[in-house]
Protein backbone atom coordinates (compact mmCIF):
# COMPACT_ATOMS: atom_id res chain seq x y z
CA UNK A 1 0.00 0.00 0.00
CA UNK A 2 1.65 3.16 -1.16
CA UNK A 3 0.71 6.28 0.77
CA UNK A 4 3.05 8.50 -1.21
CA UNK A 5 1.75 11.09 -3.61
CA UNK A 6 3.12 11.05 -7.14
CA UNK A 7 5.40 13.88 -8.26
CA UNK A 8 2.54 15.39 -10.24
CA UNK A 9 0.30 15.34 -7.18
CA UNK A 10 3.01 16.95 -5.06
CA UNK A 11 3.47 19.63 -7.70
CA UNK A 12 -0.29 20.19 -7.85
CA UNK A 13 -0.25 20.80 -4.12
CA UNK A 14 2.70 23.18 -4.09
CA UNK A 15 1.60 25.04 -7.22
CA UNK A 16 -2.01 25.50 -6.18
CA UNK A 17 -0.88 26.51 -2.71
CA UNK A 18 1.36 29.16 -4.27
CA UNK A 19 -1.59 30.38 -6.34
CA UNK A 20 -4.00 30.32 -3.42
CA UNK A 21 -1.64 32.24 -1.14
CA UNK A 22 -0.99 34.86 -3.81
CA UNK A 23 -4.47 35.30 -5.30
CA UNK A 24 -7.14 33.84 -3.02
CA UNK A 25 -6.11 34.28 0.61
CA UNK A 26 -5.56 38.05 0.24
CA UNK A 27 -9.20 38.60 -0.72
CA UNK A 28 -10.85 35.86 1.35
CA UNK A 29 -11.53 38.12 4.34
CA UNK A 30 -12.85 40.94 2.23
CA UNK A 31 -15.29 38.86 0.17
CA UNK A 32 -16.55 37.32 3.40
CA UNK A 33 -17.11 40.70 5.06
CA UNK A 34 -18.76 42.16 1.95
CA UNK A 35 -20.73 39.02 0.99
CA UNK A 36 -19.13 39.46 -2.41
CA UNK A 37 -18.86 36.78 -5.12
CA UNK A 38 -15.20 36.92 -6.25
CA UNK A 39 -15.82 37.22 -9.98
CA UNK A 40 -12.30 38.49 -10.65
CA UNK A 41 -10.82 35.25 -9.35
CA UNK A 42 -12.57 33.01 -11.90
CA UNK A 43 -10.49 33.88 -14.96
CA UNK A 44 -7.37 33.30 -12.87
CA UNK A 45 -8.70 29.90 -11.79
CA UNK A 46 -9.48 29.11 -15.43
CA UNK A 47 -5.98 30.22 -16.42
CA UNK A 48 -4.59 27.67 -13.99
CA UNK A 49 -6.81 24.96 -15.55
CA UNK A 50 -8.51 24.59 -12.17
CA UNK A 51 -12.12 24.67 -13.38
CA UNK A 52 -12.32 21.27 -15.09
CA UNK A 53 -9.35 19.34 -13.78
CA UNK A 54 -10.53 15.74 -14.07
CA UNK A 55 -12.01 16.05 -17.56
CA UNK A 56 -10.04 14.93 -20.63
CA UNK A 57 -7.95 17.50 -22.45
CA UNK A 58 -9.97 17.00 -25.63
CA UNK A 59 -12.91 18.47 -23.72
CA UNK A 60 -10.93 21.41 -22.38
CA UNK A 61 -10.08 19.81 -19.05
CA UNK A 62 -6.64 19.23 -17.59
CA UNK A 63 -6.93 15.45 -17.60
CA UNK A 64 -5.62 15.05 -14.06
CA UNK A 65 -6.55 12.19 -11.78
CA UNK A 66 -9.22 12.67 -9.14
CA UNK A 67 -6.71 12.70 -6.28
CA UNK A 68 -4.97 15.68 -7.90
CA UNK A 69 -8.34 17.39 -8.24
CA UNK A 70 -9.02 16.87 -4.53
CA UNK A 71 -5.56 18.15 -3.61
CA UNK A 72 -6.14 21.27 -5.68
CA UNK A 73 -9.60 21.76 -4.16
CA UNK A 74 -8.17 21.41 -0.66
CA UNK A 75 -5.46 23.99 -1.35
CA UNK A 76 -7.93 26.41 -2.94
CA UNK A 77 -10.25 26.02 0.05
CA UNK A 78 -7.41 26.51 2.48
CA UNK A 79 -6.86 29.90 0.88
CA UNK A 80 -10.56 30.69 0.49
CA UNK A 81 -13.45 28.34 1.34
CA UNK A 82 -15.81 30.34 -0.89
CA UNK A 83 -13.62 29.87 -3.95
CA UNK A 84 -13.44 26.17 -3.05
CA UNK A 85 -17.21 25.70 -3.23
CA UNK A 86 -17.40 27.74 -6.45
CA UNK A 87 -14.80 25.38 -7.91
CA UNK A 88 -16.42 22.12 -6.84
CA UNK A 89 -19.98 23.17 -7.57
CA UNK A 90 -18.88 24.07 -11.07
CA UNK A 91 -16.43 21.25 -11.79
CA UNK A 92 -18.32 18.35 -10.26
CA UNK A 93 -21.95 19.24 -9.73
CA UNK A 94 -22.52 21.20 -12.94
CA UNK A 95 -20.04 19.63 -15.36
CA UNK A 96 -20.13 15.94 -14.41
CA UNK A 97 -23.77 15.41 -15.42
CA UNK A 98 -23.03 16.64 -18.94
CA UNK A 99 -19.77 14.69 -19.14
CA UNK A 100 -21.37 11.46 -17.98
CA UNK A 101 -24.90 11.66 -19.27
CA UNK A 102 -24.83 14.20 -22.06
CA UNK A 103 -25.44 13.42 -25.69
CA UNK A 104 -22.59 14.08 -28.10
CA UNK A 105 -24.35 17.26 -29.19
CA UNK A 106 -24.66 18.46 -25.61
CA UNK A 107 -21.04 17.64 -24.88
CA UNK A 108 -19.96 19.48 -28.00
CA UNK A 109 -22.05 22.46 -27.03
CA UNK A 110 -21.14 22.81 -23.36
CA UNK A 111 -18.30 20.65 -22.14
CA UNK A 112 -15.35 22.50 -23.54
CA UNK A 113 -16.58 25.87 -22.33
CA UNK A 114 -17.25 24.51 -18.88
CA UNK A 115 -14.14 22.38 -18.39
CA UNK A 116 -11.95 25.25 -19.52
CA UNK A 117 -13.70 27.61 -17.14
CA UNK A 118 -14.96 29.94 -19.84
CA UNK A 119 -18.57 29.46 -18.73
CA UNK A 120 -19.60 28.83 -15.16
CA UNK A 121 -22.11 26.15 -14.17
CA UNK A 122 -24.56 25.47 -11.35
CA UNK A 123 -26.56 22.48 -10.06
CA UNK A 124 -30.20 23.09 -9.18
CA UNK A 125 -31.74 20.23 -7.19
CA UNK A 126 -32.73 21.57 -3.76
CA UNK A 127 -36.18 23.07 -3.29
CA UNK A 128 -37.78 24.81 -0.30
CA UNK A 129 -39.60 21.58 0.66
CA UNK A 130 -37.12 19.11 -0.78
CA UNK A 131 -33.62 19.02 0.73
CA UNK A 132 -32.59 15.68 2.15
CA UNK A 133 -35.81 14.30 0.71
CA UNK A 134 -34.76 15.29 -2.79
CA UNK A 135 -37.42 13.13 -4.44
CA UNK A 136 -40.12 15.29 -2.87
CA UNK A 137 -39.37 18.08 -5.33
CA UNK A 138 -42.37 19.78 -6.92
CA UNK A 139 -40.69 21.50 -9.86
CA UNK A 140 -42.31 20.25 -13.01
CA UNK A 141 -41.18 19.95 -16.63
CA UNK A 142 -44.13 19.21 -18.80
CA UNK A 143 -43.57 18.09 -22.37
CA UNK A 144 -45.23 20.33 -24.92
CA UNK A 145 -44.56 19.64 -28.60
CA UNK A 146 -40.82 19.99 -29.10
CA UNK A 147 -40.09 21.57 -25.75
CA UNK A 148 -40.52 21.24 -22.03
CA UNK A 149 -42.14 23.89 -19.84
CA UNK A 150 -40.57 24.28 -16.42
CA UNK A 151 -42.41 25.57 -13.40
CA UNK A 152 -41.31 25.78 -9.78
CA UNK A 153 -38.53 27.13 -7.64
CA UNK A 154 -35.14 26.06 -6.34
CA UNK A 155 -33.28 27.31 -3.29
CA UNK A 156 -29.63 27.67 -2.15
CA UNK A 157 -28.20 27.31 -5.67
CA UNK A 158 -24.43 27.89 -5.57
CA UNK A 159 -22.95 30.04 -8.32
CA UNK A 160 -26.27 31.57 -9.41
CA UNK A 161 -26.68 34.10 -11.02
CA UNK A 162 -23.05 34.19 -12.17
CA UNK A 163 -23.39 30.76 -13.73
CA UNK A 164 -24.53 30.63 -17.35
CA UNK A 165 -25.36 26.92 -17.42
CA UNK A 166 -27.73 25.26 -14.95
CA UNK A 167 -28.44 21.57 -14.43
CA UNK A 168 -32.07 21.73 -13.33
CA UNK A 169 -33.97 18.75 -11.91
CA UNK A 170 -37.74 18.69 -12.44
CA UNK A 171 -40.55 16.15 -12.59
CA UNK A 172 -41.49 15.16 -16.11
CA UNK A 173 -43.93 12.72 -14.50
CA UNK A 174 -45.20 14.41 -11.33
CA UNK A 175 -47.50 11.48 -10.51
CA UNK A 176 -44.80 8.84 -10.58
CA UNK A 177 -43.91 7.13 -7.32
CA UNK A 178 -40.85 7.89 -5.24
CA UNK A 179 -37.72 8.78 -7.12
CA UNK A 180 -39.03 7.97 -10.57
CA UNK A 181 -40.47 10.74 -12.71
CA UNK A 182 -37.60 13.20 -12.14
CA UNK A 183 -35.55 14.37 -15.12
CA UNK A 184 -32.53 16.57 -15.59
CA UNK A 185 -32.29 19.56 -17.93
CA UNK A 186 -29.59 21.90 -19.14
CA UNK A 187 -31.00 25.43 -18.84
CA UNK A 188 -29.11 28.54 -19.89
CA UNK A 189 -29.29 31.68 -17.82
CA UNK A 190 -31.09 34.03 -20.17
CA UNK A 191 -33.93 31.66 -20.99
CA UNK A 192 -37.23 33.57 -20.68
CA UNK A 193 -39.23 32.46 -17.64
CA UNK A 194 -36.07 31.69 -15.66
CA UNK A 195 -35.14 34.24 -13.02
CA UNK A 196 -32.84 34.37 -10.04
CA UNK A 197 -33.97 35.71 -6.68
CA UNK A 198 -32.39 37.67 -3.88
CA UNK A 199 -29.06 36.61 -2.45
CA UNK A 200 -29.20 34.52 0.70
CA UNK A 201 -27.26 35.87 3.68
CA UNK A 202 -25.43 33.01 5.33
CA UNK A 203 -23.33 32.24 8.37
CA UNK A 204 -20.31 31.32 6.30
CA UNK A 205 -18.92 31.00 2.76
CA UNK A 206 -20.44 34.44 2.46
CA UNK A 207 -18.81 35.16 -0.88
CA UNK A 208 -20.61 32.17 -2.38
CA UNK A 209 -23.77 33.31 -4.11
CA UNK A 210 -26.68 30.97 -3.28
CA UNK A 211 -29.96 32.60 -4.33
CA UNK A 212 -33.25 30.91 -5.18
CA UNK A 213 -34.21 30.23 -8.82
CA UNK A 214 -37.74 30.77 -10.20
CA UNK A 215 -39.14 28.99 -13.23
CA UNK A 216 -42.40 30.45 -14.54
CA UNK A 217 -43.53 28.74 -17.70
CA UNK A 218 -39.91 28.55 -18.69
CA UNK A 219 -39.73 26.86 -22.05
CA UNK A 220 -36.64 24.86 -22.99
CA UNK A 221 -36.07 22.89 -26.20
CA UNK A 222 -36.56 19.11 -26.08
CA UNK A 223 -32.82 18.60 -26.58
CA UNK A 224 -32.23 20.33 -23.27
CA UNK A 225 -33.20 17.07 -21.61
CA UNK A 226 -30.10 15.46 -20.11
CA UNK A 227 -30.13 11.70 -20.31
CA UNK A 228 -33.54 9.97 -20.37
CA UNK A 229 -36.82 11.06 -18.90
CA UNK A 230 -37.05 9.55 -15.42
CA UNK A 231 -33.25 9.32 -15.13
CA UNK A 232 -32.96 12.58 -13.21
CA UNK A 233 -32.76 11.22 -9.69
CA UNK A 234 -30.06 8.76 -10.68
CA UNK A 235 -28.09 11.56 -12.37
CA UNK A 236 -28.39 13.71 -9.26
CA UNK A 237 -27.33 10.98 -6.87
CA UNK A 238 -24.42 9.84 -8.96
CA UNK A 239 -23.22 13.40 -9.31
CA UNK A 240 -23.50 13.96 -5.59
CA UNK A 241 -21.50 10.77 -4.93
CA UNK A 242 -18.49 12.48 -6.45
CA UNK A 243 -19.42 15.92 -5.20
CA UNK A 244 -19.39 14.84 -1.59
CA UNK A 245 -15.72 13.87 -1.84
CA UNK A 246 -15.12 17.41 -3.04
CA UNK A 247 -16.86 18.80 0.01
CA UNK A 248 -14.60 16.53 2.05
CA UNK A 249 -11.64 18.21 0.36
CA UNK A 250 -13.09 21.65 1.01
CA UNK A 251 -13.56 20.74 4.67
CA UNK A 252 -9.93 19.56 4.76
CA UNK A 253 -8.74 22.88 3.43
CA UNK A 254 -10.74 24.82 6.01
CA UNK A 255 -9.53 22.55 8.81
CA UNK A 256 -5.92 22.87 7.69
CA UNK A 257 -6.17 26.64 7.54
CA UNK A 258 -7.59 26.67 11.06
CA UNK A 259 -4.86 24.36 12.36
CA UNK A 260 -2.11 26.42 10.67
CA UNK A 261 -3.49 29.56 12.29
CA UNK A 262 -3.72 27.89 15.70
CA UNK A 263 -0.15 26.60 15.49
CA UNK A 264 1.22 30.01 14.47
CA UNK A 265 -0.69 31.70 17.27
CA UNK A 266 0.31 29.15 19.91
CA UNK A 267 3.98 29.64 19.08
CA UNK A 268 3.78 33.40 19.42
CA UNK A 269 1.31 33.99 22.22
CA UNK A 270 3.22 34.31 25.47
CA UNK A 271 1.46 33.84 28.78
CA UNK A 272 3.08 33.08 32.12
CA UNK A 273 6.42 33.85 30.52
CA UNK A 274 6.32 31.27 27.75
CA UNK A 275 4.56 30.56 24.48
CA UNK A 276 1.29 28.71 25.05
CA UNK A 277 2.55 26.08 22.61
CA UNK A 278 4.68 24.81 25.49
CA UNK A 279 1.60 24.02 27.57
CA UNK A 280 0.37 20.44 27.49
CA UNK A 281 -3.30 21.43 27.26
CA UNK A 282 -2.60 23.28 24.02
CA UNK A 283 -0.29 20.57 22.75
CA UNK A 284 -2.95 17.92 23.21
CA UNK A 285 -5.56 20.00 21.45
CA UNK A 286 -3.20 20.43 18.53
CA UNK A 287 -2.33 16.74 18.52
CA UNK A 288 -6.01 15.83 18.26
CA UNK A 289 -6.60 18.39 15.54
CA UNK A 290 -3.61 17.19 13.51
CA UNK A 291 -4.62 13.55 13.84
CA UNK A 292 -8.22 14.14 12.79
CA UNK A 293 -7.14 16.16 9.78
CA UNK A 294 -4.69 13.47 8.73
CA UNK A 295 -7.34 10.79 9.07
CA UNK A 296 -9.80 12.90 7.12
CA UNK A 297 -7.22 13.44 4.41
CA UNK A 298 -6.63 9.73 4.05
CA UNK A 299 -10.36 9.12 3.73
CA UNK A 300 -10.75 11.81 1.09
CA UNK A 301 -7.75 10.63 -0.90
CA UNK A 302 -8.86 6.99 -0.64
CA UNK A 303 -12.29 7.82 -2.01
CA UNK A 304 -10.70 9.86 -4.79
CA UNK A 305 -8.25 7.07 -5.51
CA UNK A 306 -11.19 4.66 -5.81
CA UNK A 307 -12.60 6.85 -8.56
CA UNK A 308 -9.23 6.79 -10.31
CA UNK A 309 -9.04 3.01 -10.12
CA UNK A 310 -12.63 2.43 -11.17
CA UNK A 311 -13.57 1.04 -7.76
CA UNK A 312 -16.90 1.81 -6.09
CA UNK A 313 -16.77 5.09 -4.19
CA UNK A 314 -20.23 5.87 -2.89
CA UNK A 315 -19.78 4.64 0.67
CA UNK A 316 -16.14 5.73 0.79
CA UNK A 317 -17.13 9.21 -0.37
CA UNK A 318 -19.82 9.41 2.28
CA UNK A 319 -17.31 8.42 4.97
CA UNK A 320 -14.85 11.00 3.69
CA UNK A 321 -17.39 13.80 3.66
CA UNK A 322 -18.89 12.87 7.02
CA UNK A 323 -15.56 12.63 8.80
CA UNK A 324 -13.88 15.60 7.12
CA UNK A 325 -16.81 17.95 7.70
CA UNK A 326 -17.16 17.04 11.36
CA UNK A 327 -13.38 17.37 11.67
CA UNK A 328 -13.50 20.83 10.13
CA UNK A 329 -16.09 22.14 12.57
CA UNK A 330 -14.33 20.60 15.53
CA UNK A 331 -10.87 21.80 14.48
CA UNK A 332 -12.15 25.32 13.79
CA UNK A 333 -13.81 25.36 17.19
CA UNK A 334 -10.57 24.28 18.88
CA UNK A 335 -8.63 26.81 16.85
CA UNK A 336 -10.74 29.61 18.30
CA UNK A 337 -10.28 28.09 21.75
CA UNK A 338 -6.52 28.20 21.31
CA UNK A 339 -6.72 31.82 20.24
CA UNK A 340 -8.71 32.73 23.32
CA UNK A 341 -10.58 36.01 23.19
CA UNK A 342 -8.66 37.16 20.13
CA UNK A 343 -10.07 34.22 18.18
CA UNK A 344 -13.52 35.69 18.60
CA UNK A 345 -12.56 38.92 16.81
CA UNK A 346 -12.28 39.72 13.14
CA UNK A 347 -8.57 40.48 13.54
CA UNK A 348 -7.86 36.78 13.26
CA UNK A 349 -9.07 34.48 10.45
CA UNK A 350 -10.19 31.64 12.72
CA UNK A 351 -13.69 33.04 13.27
CA UNK A 352 -14.21 32.89 9.51
CA UNK A 353 -12.94 29.29 9.37
CA UNK A 354 -15.41 28.45 12.16
CA UNK A 355 -18.30 29.96 10.22
CA UNK A 356 -17.15 28.47 6.91
CA UNK A 357 -16.70 24.97 8.35
CA UNK A 358 -20.33 24.43 9.36
CA UNK A 359 -21.74 24.32 5.83
CA UNK A 360 -19.65 21.25 5.03
CA UNK A 361 -21.85 19.24 7.43
CA UNK A 362 -24.97 20.44 5.63
CA UNK A 363 -24.76 20.74 1.86
CA UNK A 364 -24.35 18.10 -0.80
CA UNK A 365 -26.01 15.70 1.62
CA UNK A 366 -26.22 16.42 5.32
CA UNK A 367 -24.23 14.30 7.76
CA UNK A 368 -27.49 12.42 8.38
CA UNK A 369 -27.66 11.47 4.70
CA UNK A 370 -24.03 10.34 4.78
CA UNK A 371 -24.78 8.19 7.82
CA UNK A 372 -27.74 6.66 5.98
CA UNK A 373 -25.47 5.72 3.07
CA UNK A 374 -22.78 4.28 5.33
CA UNK A 375 -25.24 2.37 7.51
CA UNK A 376 -26.85 0.84 4.47
CA UNK A 377 -23.47 -0.48 3.35
CA UNK A 378 -22.43 -1.59 6.82
CA UNK A 379 -25.68 -3.39 7.47
CA UNK A 380 -25.73 -5.31 4.19
Amino acid sequence: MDFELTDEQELVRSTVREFAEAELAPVAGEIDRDHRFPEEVLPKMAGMNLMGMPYPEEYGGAGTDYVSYMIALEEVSRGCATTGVIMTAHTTLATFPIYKFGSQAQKDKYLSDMASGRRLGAFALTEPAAGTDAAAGTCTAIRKDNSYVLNGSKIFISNAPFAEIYIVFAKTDPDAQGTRGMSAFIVERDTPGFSVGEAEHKLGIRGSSTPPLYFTNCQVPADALLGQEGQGFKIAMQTLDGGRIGIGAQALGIAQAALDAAVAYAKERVQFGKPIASLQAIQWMIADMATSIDAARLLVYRAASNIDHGFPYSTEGAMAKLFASETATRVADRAIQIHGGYGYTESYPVERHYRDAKITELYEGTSEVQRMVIARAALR
Partner: protein
Amino acid sequence: MKIVVAYKWTSDPEEATVGADGVVNWSRARPGISTYDPVAIEVARGLAAATSAELIGVTVGAKGVGTPLAAKAALSRGLDRAVIVEDDSLKGAGQAELAAVVAAVVRRIGDVDLVITGDSSVDVAAKMVPTVLAGELGWPAVAEVTDVTGQPGALRVGRAVPGGAQVLEISGPAVLATSADATTPHVPGMKDLLAAGKKPVEHVDLAALDVPASSAVMTITGRARPARKERKHQLLDTSDPAEAAAELVKALREVGAL
Protein backbone atom coordinates in the same frame (compact mmCIF):
# COMPACT_ATOMS: atom_id res chain seq x y z
CA MET B 1 18.59 29.62 -31.35
CA LYS B 2 19.47 27.87 -28.08
CA ILE B 3 18.75 29.59 -24.82
CA VAL B 4 19.97 28.06 -21.56
CA VAL B 5 18.33 29.02 -18.27
CA ALA B 6 20.47 28.16 -15.27
CA TYR B 7 18.28 27.63 -12.21
CA LYS B 8 18.82 26.48 -8.67
CA TRP B 9 16.94 23.89 -6.62
CA THR B 10 17.40 24.85 -3.00
CA SER B 11 15.77 25.82 0.30
CA ASP B 12 14.78 29.17 1.72
CA PRO B 13 16.84 30.16 4.79
CA GLU B 14 13.60 31.62 6.16
CA GLU B 15 12.64 28.02 6.95
CA ALA B 16 15.99 27.00 8.38
CA THR B 17 16.94 27.19 12.02
CA VAL B 18 20.32 28.08 13.48
CA GLY B 19 21.76 26.57 16.61
CA ALA B 20 23.69 28.54 19.18
CA ASP B 21 26.80 27.02 17.58
CA GLY B 22 26.02 28.62 14.27
CA VAL B 23 25.19 25.34 12.55
CA VAL B 24 22.29 25.77 10.14
CA ASN B 25 19.57 23.12 10.29
CA TRP B 26 17.75 22.73 6.96
CA SER B 27 15.64 19.72 7.93
CA ARG B 28 12.36 21.61 8.17
CA ALA B 29 12.93 23.55 4.98
CA ARG B 30 11.26 22.28 1.82
CA PRO B 31 13.46 22.69 -1.27
CA GLY B 32 12.03 24.28 -4.34
CA ILE B 33 13.03 26.41 -7.29
CA SER B 34 14.95 29.42 -5.98
CA THR B 35 12.53 32.32 -5.53
CA TYR B 36 13.64 34.59 -8.40
CA ASP B 37 14.56 31.90 -10.92
CA PRO B 38 11.00 31.66 -12.27
CA VAL B 39 11.42 35.30 -13.33
CA ALA B 40 14.46 34.29 -15.40
CA ILE B 41 12.58 31.33 -16.89
CA GLU B 42 9.65 33.57 -17.76
CA VAL B 43 11.88 36.14 -19.50
CA ALA B 44 13.67 33.34 -21.35
CA ARG B 45 10.35 31.80 -22.35
CA GLY B 46 9.19 35.07 -23.87
CA LEU B 47 12.35 35.40 -25.94
CA ALA B 48 12.28 31.72 -26.92
CA ALA B 49 8.71 32.05 -28.12
CA ALA B 50 9.54 35.18 -30.12
CA THR B 51 12.59 33.59 -31.79
CA SER B 52 11.43 29.94 -31.96
CA ALA B 53 14.43 29.08 -29.81
CA GLU B 54 14.95 25.91 -27.81
CA LEU B 55 14.74 26.60 -24.09
CA ILE B 56 17.05 24.36 -22.06
CA GLY B 57 17.12 24.34 -18.27
CA VAL B 58 20.42 23.61 -16.56
CA THR B 59 20.99 22.98 -12.89
CA VAL B 60 23.95 21.62 -10.95
CA GLY B 61 24.41 20.64 -7.33
CA ALA B 62 24.42 17.86 -4.79
CA LYS B 63 22.18 14.82 -5.08
CA GLY B 64 18.57 15.90 -4.87
CA VAL B 65 18.66 18.84 -7.27
CA GLY B 66 17.62 16.60 -10.14
CA THR B 67 14.94 14.33 -8.72
CA PRO B 68 11.98 13.78 -11.03
CA LEU B 69 9.96 16.14 -8.83
CA ALA B 70 12.59 18.88 -9.01
CA ALA B 71 13.00 18.48 -12.76
CA LYS B 72 9.24 18.57 -13.36
CA ALA B 73 8.88 21.63 -11.17
CA ALA B 74 11.35 23.43 -13.44
CA LEU B 75 10.07 21.99 -16.72
CA SER B 76 6.48 22.91 -15.85
CA ARG B 77 7.47 26.57 -15.99
CA GLY B 78 8.06 26.42 -19.74
CA LEU B 79 11.39 24.73 -20.45
CA ASP B 80 11.69 22.36 -23.41
CA ARG B 81 14.19 20.08 -21.73
CA ALA B 82 16.59 19.94 -18.81
CA VAL B 83 20.25 19.02 -18.36
CA ILE B 84 21.22 18.23 -14.80
CA VAL B 85 24.46 17.48 -12.96
CA GLU B 86 23.96 15.87 -9.57
CA ASP B 87 27.04 15.02 -7.54
CA ASP B 88 27.53 15.05 -3.81
CA SER B 89 31.02 16.51 -4.27
CA LEU B 90 29.14 19.71 -5.11
CA LYS B 91 27.59 19.86 -1.66
CA GLY B 92 28.68 23.13 -0.12
CA ALA B 93 30.35 24.16 -3.36
CA GLY B 94 31.11 27.86 -3.63
CA GLN B 95 29.81 30.20 -6.31
CA ALA B 96 32.97 29.91 -8.43
CA GLU B 97 32.86 26.12 -8.47
CA LEU B 98 29.16 26.02 -9.39
CA ALA B 99 29.74 28.57 -12.14
CA ALA B 100 32.59 26.50 -13.55
CA VAL B 101 30.39 23.39 -13.70
CA VAL B 102 27.54 25.29 -15.35
CA ALA B 103 30.02 26.66 -17.89
CA ALA B 104 31.16 23.12 -18.66
CA VAL B 105 27.55 22.04 -19.20
CA VAL B 106 26.90 24.99 -21.51
CA ARG B 107 29.97 24.06 -23.55
CA ARG B 108 28.80 20.46 -23.70
CA ILE B 109 25.34 21.44 -24.92
CA GLY B 110 27.09 23.37 -27.65
CA ASP B 111 25.96 26.24 -29.88
CA VAL B 112 24.30 28.03 -26.99
CA ASP B 113 23.46 31.61 -27.96
CA LEU B 114 22.42 32.95 -24.60
CA VAL B 115 22.44 32.00 -20.93
CA ILE B 116 19.85 33.61 -18.70
CA THR B 117 19.97 33.36 -14.91
CA GLY B 118 18.06 34.79 -12.00
CA ASP B 119 19.16 37.79 -10.00
CA SER B 120 20.50 35.72 -7.10
CA SER B 121 19.61 32.56 -5.25
CA VAL B 122 17.26 32.66 -2.30
CA ASP B 123 19.69 30.88 -0.01
CA VAL B 124 23.07 32.39 -0.84
CA ALA B 125 22.06 35.66 -2.55
CA ALA B 126 25.64 36.10 -3.80
CA LYS B 127 24.77 37.57 -7.24
CA MET B 128 28.11 36.23 -8.50
CA VAL B 129 27.39 32.94 -10.26
CA PRO B 130 26.26 34.63 -13.51
CA THR B 131 29.30 36.92 -13.58
CA VAL B 132 31.86 34.17 -12.91
CA LEU B 133 30.00 31.95 -15.40
CA ALA B 134 30.44 34.62 -18.05
CA GLY B 135 34.12 34.89 -17.18
CA GLU B 136 34.51 31.12 -17.56
CA LEU B 137 32.74 31.15 -20.93
CA GLY B 138 34.58 34.23 -22.14
CA TRP B 139 31.26 35.98 -22.77
CA PRO B 140 29.97 39.40 -21.67
CA ALA B 141 27.65 39.47 -18.69
CA VAL B 142 24.96 42.01 -17.89
CA ALA B 143 23.05 42.10 -14.60
CA GLU B 144 19.75 43.71 -13.54
CA VAL B 145 18.24 42.83 -16.91
CA THR B 146 14.59 43.80 -17.28
CA ASP B 147 13.83 42.68 -20.82
CA VAL B 148 15.43 40.97 -23.80
CA THR B 149 14.39 41.11 -27.44
CA GLY B 150 16.02 40.56 -30.80
CA GLN B 151 18.05 37.77 -32.35
CA PRO B 152 21.39 36.16 -31.59
CA GLY B 153 24.04 38.53 -32.83
CA ALA B 154 21.78 41.50 -32.21
CA LEU B 155 20.17 41.19 -28.80
CA ARG B 156 18.55 44.27 -27.32
CA VAL B 157 18.75 44.19 -23.56
CA GLY B 158 17.06 46.59 -21.15
CA ARG B 159 18.76 46.85 -17.79
CA ALA B 160 18.58 48.93 -14.62
CA VAL B 161 21.52 51.08 -13.59
CA PRO B 162 21.86 53.31 -10.55
CA GLY B 163 19.93 56.42 -11.51
CA GLY B 164 17.87 54.88 -14.29
CA ALA B 165 17.95 52.34 -17.09
CA GLN B 166 19.82 51.56 -20.28
CA VAL B 167 19.16 49.73 -23.51
CA LEU B 168 22.17 47.74 -24.70
CA GLU B 169 22.92 45.92 -27.91
CA ILE B 170 24.95 42.73 -27.58
CA SER B 171 26.47 41.19 -30.66
CA GLY B 172 27.46 37.72 -29.51
CA PRO B 173 26.58 35.13 -26.90
CA ALA B 174 26.14 36.54 -23.42
CA VAL B 175 25.10 35.76 -19.86
CA LEU B 176 22.15 37.84 -18.68
CA ALA B 177 21.04 37.97 -15.04
CA THR B 178 17.45 39.16 -14.76
CA SER B 179 16.39 41.56 -12.03
CA ALA B 180 13.89 40.19 -9.54
CA ASP B 181 11.12 42.39 -10.91
CA ALA B 182 11.79 41.94 -14.62
CA THR B 183 8.41 40.28 -14.96
CA THR B 184 5.81 38.48 -12.88
CA PRO B 185 6.19 34.79 -13.61
CA HIS B 186 3.00 32.94 -14.35
CA VAL B 187 2.07 30.12 -12.00
CA PRO B 188 2.06 26.88 -14.02
CA GLY B 189 -1.42 25.54 -14.69
CA MET B 190 -2.49 21.96 -14.17
CA LYS B 191 -1.88 21.19 -17.86
CA ASP B 192 1.69 22.53 -17.59
CA LEU B 193 2.33 20.26 -14.60
CA LEU B 194 1.15 17.18 -16.47
CA ALA B 195 3.10 18.10 -19.61
CA ALA B 196 6.32 18.51 -17.62
CA GLY B 197 6.55 14.77 -17.05
CA LYS B 198 6.84 14.18 -20.78
CA LYS B 199 9.78 16.52 -21.41
CA PRO B 200 13.31 15.08 -21.77
CA VAL B 201 15.71 15.22 -18.83
CA GLU B 202 19.40 14.45 -19.33
CA HIS B 203 21.62 13.64 -16.37
CA VAL B 204 25.31 14.30 -17.00
CA ASP B 205 28.08 12.85 -14.86
CA LEU B 206 30.33 15.46 -13.29
CA ALA B 207 33.30 13.26 -14.13
CA ALA B 208 32.40 13.38 -17.81
CA LEU B 209 32.56 17.16 -17.90
CA ASP B 210 35.61 19.23 -18.60
CA VAL B 211 35.58 21.54 -15.59
CA PRO B 212 38.65 23.74 -15.16
CA ALA B 213 40.21 23.10 -11.76
CA SER B 214 39.86 25.75 -9.13
CA SER B 215 43.05 27.33 -7.84
CA ALA B 216 41.51 27.84 -4.43
CA VAL B 217 40.31 25.21 -2.01
CA MET B 218 37.85 26.44 0.63
CA THR B 219 37.65 24.77 4.03
CA ILE B 220 35.17 25.77 6.70
CA THR B 221 37.03 25.83 9.97
CA GLY B 222 34.42 27.35 12.23
CA ARG B 223 30.85 28.48 12.60
CA ALA B 224 29.21 30.97 14.88
CA ARG B 225 25.85 32.54 15.34
CA PRO B 226 26.15 36.25 14.61
CA ALA B 227 25.58 38.46 17.64
CA ARG B 228 22.13 39.99 17.34
CA LYS B 229 20.76 42.95 19.15
CA GLU B 230 18.30 41.93 21.88
CA ARG B 231 14.86 43.25 20.97
CA LYS B 232 12.23 44.23 23.53
CA HIS B 233 9.33 42.48 21.70
CA GLN B 234 6.85 44.83 23.31
CA LEU B 235 3.37 44.71 21.79
CA LEU B 236 1.41 47.90 22.36
CA ASP B 237 -2.33 47.81 23.01
CA THR B 238 -3.91 49.11 19.81
CA SER B 239 -7.58 48.98 20.78
CA ASP B 240 -7.44 52.80 20.83
CA PRO B 241 -5.17 53.85 17.94
CA ALA B 242 -4.74 57.39 19.27
CA GLU B 243 -3.59 56.11 22.64
CA ALA B 244 -1.31 53.55 21.03
CA ALA B 245 0.28 56.30 18.94
CA ALA B 246 0.85 58.46 22.02
CA GLU B 247 2.30 55.55 23.93
CA LEU B 248 4.68 54.70 21.07
CA VAL B 249 5.95 58.25 20.70
CA LYS B 250 6.47 58.50 24.44
CA ALA B 251 8.43 55.23 24.54
CA LEU B 252 10.58 56.26 21.57
CA ARG B 253 11.35 59.61 23.18
CA GLU B 254 12.35 57.82 26.37
CA VAL B 255 14.86 55.58 24.60
CA GLY B 256 16.22 58.46 22.59
CA ALA B 257 15.08 57.17 19.21
CA LEU B 258 13.36 60.46 18.43
